[in-house]
């Protein structure tokens, strides 16, 4: 199974600022994904991070707010831009390897 390292594990940020979350996989994977989990809720897909092309965003999420990079097959970043308190959530990266789908430890973001 793929091992995914995500950082930071948590952060408290001022509104209006941006935070970049990094996700490193211990092996090459074709597909990486970014999810958001709001407090007490389930997971919602933000976007699919494609290597060599722009990310594919789900309805309700836009590139200007959540720019994503995927420079190679083991690494991706998600930036939460111009943050507001409504962005306070856990953000998780995920990678698919074979039939398995694995998750990083998550980044708990609090915007004040």
């Amino acid at each position, binding site marked *: *199974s793929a091992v995914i390292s995500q950082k930071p594990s948590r952060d408290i940020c001022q509104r209006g600022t941006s935070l970049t979350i990094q996700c490193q996989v211990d092996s090459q994977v*074709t*597909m990486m*994904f970014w999810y958001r989990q709001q407090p007490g*809720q*389930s*997971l*919602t*897909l933000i976007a*699919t991070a494609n290597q060599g092309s722009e990310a*594919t965003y*789900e309805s309700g999420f836009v590139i200007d707010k959540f720019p994503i990079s995927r420079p190679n097959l083991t690494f991706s970043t998600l930036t939460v831009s111009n943050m507001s308190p409504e962005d306070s959530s856990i953000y*998780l990266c*995920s990678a*698919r390897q074979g*039939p*398995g*789908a*694995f*998750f*990083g*430890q*998550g980044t*708990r973001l609090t915007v004040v």
Partner: protein
Amino acid sequence: ELKVEQNPLFLSMQEGKNYTIYCNYSTTSDRLYWYRQDPGKSLESLFVLLSNGAVKQEGRLMASLDTKARLSTLHITAAVHDLSATYFCAVGFNYGGSQGNLIFGKGTKLSVKP
């Protein structure tokens, strides 16, 4: 619309009892996942079910998949306190340009009491 419905959403059990969590999904899928999440933690993969009739067991947990009924179950046998957590089912859909992502159920918060 792609939907994954999980029930119950809350489950309080006595130790030693058995119970089943249900996961229904709205359209054809080729894989179904069960995850466990402890408070403040990420998701731990429990099972991946890939075919109709698939059954997997690990300790006191057993998962099954009926693709014709679009239903998966997670059965808990003789519950113990350590099983207290939130359990999510997730279904893999391939559609549009987003192949391989998962749609999650709302989760079942399980509390096992002595």
